């Protein structure tokens, strides 16, 4: 029997690249890390502007979103019991290594900030200092995950390397604003609502620009496993942002916030799931380009 050969070149249709093996926990982590990171920025900005009520919500969100992050990352490992090997090196060439250290440091200062918020007294003073550090670390925490994906040979990620960070930063800002709008009485939540709308527009605009940049590779956001979360992200984020403009009343803000949080999560699922589809589509070696 003569085996089949692919007409368009390639070797029996086998992909050049191997598929990424990251599980859904990683998408949830991307979402929570972004939520925690930009919530810290929002909390710090709210504190500076004298909006202590919003700051309280934001720091609560940052801390609560942070807590599940390390376990989510550890269970995704092939050998979870060796997770601490991440902490034996600090490696600038590895976004995952840098992210590990950012997350570790962010966890420490965010815990201190949350303790200051809850306990008061001497802890409040320490907490204020920690808040500045947490806000500073929150920015890379919300965006390094985009670099992590872009720094691979997977076309749909690597060719979007200059857009993915904006998608993730927008998505994270939308989610942090949404959480602030949900947890804060409406007379104090206006900055959160504005941030949520801003983040949603940034996410949608960056995602649109990313697909234009990707050209034919953008099909992995329209077919296959990423199609539904990508559609959901556009719909939920768009609807959430529109509703948030009417968010002067708290129930409306809460509904909009839920939509935006869900849209942000869907966005991370879409991006993560596009990777394996794109890797599978490299049977013709020509698709792996610089």
């Amino acid at each position, binding site marked *: 029997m003569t085996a089949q050969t692919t007409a368009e070149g390639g070797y029996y249709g086998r992909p050049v690249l191997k598929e990424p093996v990251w599980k859904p926990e990683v998408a949830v982590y991307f979402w929570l890390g972004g939520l925690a990171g930009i919530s810290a920025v929002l909390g710090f*900005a709210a504190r500076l502007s004298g909006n202590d009520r919003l700051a309280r919500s934001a720091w609560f969100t940052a801390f609560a979103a942070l807590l599940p992050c390390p376990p989510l990352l550890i269970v995704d490992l092939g050998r979870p019991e060796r997770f601490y090997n991440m902490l034996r090196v600090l490696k600038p060439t590895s976004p995952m290594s840098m992210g590990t250290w950012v997350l570790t440091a962010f966890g420490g200062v965010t815990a201190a900030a949350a303790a200051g918020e809850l306990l008061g007294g001497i802890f409040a003073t320490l907490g204020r200092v920690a808040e500045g550090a947490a806000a500073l670390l929150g920015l890379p925490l919300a965006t390094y995950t985009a670099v992590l994906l872009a720094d691979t040979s997977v076309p749909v990620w*690597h060719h979007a*390397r200059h857009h993915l960070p*904006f998608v993730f930063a927008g998505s994270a800002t939308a989610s942090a604003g949404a959480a602030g709008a949900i947890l804060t009485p409406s007379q104090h939540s206006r900055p959160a609502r504005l941030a949520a709308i801003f983040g949603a527009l940034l996410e949608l605009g960056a995602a649109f620009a990313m697909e234009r940049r990707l050209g034919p590779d953008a099909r992995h956001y329209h077919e296959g496993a990423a199609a539904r979360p990508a559609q959901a992200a556009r719909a939920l984020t768009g609807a959430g942002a529109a509703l948030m403009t009417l968010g002067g009343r708290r129930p409306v803000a809460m509904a909009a916030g839920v939509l935006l949080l869900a849209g942000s999560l869907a966005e991370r699922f879409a991006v993560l799931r596009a990777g394996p589809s794109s890797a599978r589509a490299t049977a013709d070696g020509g698709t792996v380009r610089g």
Partner: protein
Amino acid sequence: MAVSSGPPPYPGEVLVQPVAGDEVGFFTDSSICIGCKACEVACKQWNNVPVDDIRYLNSSYDNTGELSANSWRHVSFFEQKRDGGVAWLMNSDVCKHCKHAACLDVCPTGAIFRTEFDTVVVQADVCNGCGYCIPACPFGVLTRREGVVDQPAETHVAQKCTMCYDRLKGGDEPACAQACPTKSIQFGPLPALRERAQRRLDVLHQEGVDSARLYLADQSDNEIGGAGAFFLLLDEPAKYRYPERPITPTKRLGGMWLAAAAAAAVALAGVGAAAASGRR
């Protein structure tokens, strides 16, 4: 090297004594590969690589499929109907041991390292199976070793060709090169191997094999900065499951961090402006 004048004449016995600091590698000449798979077997035997991924694939004599944690050498059989018969393109694939290796760059534990022979090796006892090297590799070489219970210490971690690191340290050539009966797989100092490959290419072109070409022999047609394993092919790279122009994604990391910094700055500006406007 103990051999002062480079590798012995082609073809013939390879007798090299690599020492630390030598830049060594493989030259795989697919024009004399007979598809015997002695390299696959020798590799599995020497390195105790499991055989659990051999299954019927309906792709000529290739039931190995592709390189993976459990296949460190892979003999491809590209089968073409020609004049009523069948023509084979056979080639023994292996990790390219890139001079600029994406897998090594992204590894967050330091499990993947560059040896004193300029090869790239995964330390199975350090790897925690994060999976980052798998999509980073532009050749799709790496996977995690799954479902093997007789070597529990090495399951769920990334594995690939080590260029027989233990044999190199002992002064031997890799098992695949030693087992290859036609010297299609040749091991030695890379500069000498490149010269030899060029001579072989010239001979083939003189004999009218116009389709013969070198793949990864120099740095001009790729981003990986040169390879520790290069090939003489008889058709376009895609027919061997190779990317035409392999990339090193990690070479562009600086630009990615700049984009991330810009994105973070935009987010900061947006949140800051929102907080300031909410003050009123």
